[in-house]
């Protein structure tokens, strides 16, 4: 798994590449926490090159969403969610907790 962070005026774009499972999810959680600690609560997660995500990754997303939405200071949105991952998120009832966008431009423009 590889994470890159790009800062925009109104939000941060966090790109996750590769596979997120119980081994790599702590790294994702750390990256999201680091953004929050830096005062960034408006986050776009780009999943274009994400190959796989287990419930360990969902857990990291949920924790971040909770923290970002606190005091209405922001939110986590998802962009380019691959079909298989979208299906798993749906099964877990997560799609109603996150706005999803078909491309990063629209997602970034949301903020």
């Amino acid at each position: 798994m590889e994470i890159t962070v790009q800062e925009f005026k109104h939000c941060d774009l966090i790109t996750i590449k590769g596979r997120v499972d119980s081994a790599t999810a702590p790294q994702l959680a750390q990256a999201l926490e680091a953004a929050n600690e830096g005062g960034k609560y408006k986050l776009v997660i780009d999943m274009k090159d994400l190959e796989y995500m287990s419930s360990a990754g969902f857990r990291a997303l949920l924790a971040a969403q909770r923290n970002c939405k606190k005091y209405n200071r922001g939110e986590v949105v998802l962009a380019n969610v691959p079909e298989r991952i979208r299906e798993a998120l749906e099964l877990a009832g997560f799609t109603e907790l996150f706005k999803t966008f078909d491309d990063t431009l629209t997602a970034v423009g949301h903020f």
Partner: protein
Amino acid sequence: MRFAAKFEFLDEIREFVGEVARAGGFSEREIYNIQLASDEAASNIIEHAYAGISNGTLEVSCEVKNGVMTIILVDHGAPFDPSEIPTPDLTADLSERKIGGLGIYLMRKLMDEVHYKAEPEKNRNTLTMIKRKG
């Protein structure tokens, strides 16, 4: 196939079950779901059955016969019956949402059957998952 019960080996476990499923003619979507269910099962064993134990092992065997894939995971840790874990409330709002039990819920939804057998006298727990070709 025997694996060290560590999260670092989840990649190999997914690859192993994925190869067998692919050779057995399952679709890419089914293969992803079989890999996800196997990952969730193995993650639970590593996290719960082997809680605090760093040298545990996990035996994974799988086969496809007549369009039915059987995956068997054997561990020698503490008994942990997934059927005793309550189904998470998937309609709860963000603040109420619990993540515990989600992996097991996914396992049950993605596979056709999930069975668990604890044999404390043999120090052996067996999780069997079955998936039929769609």
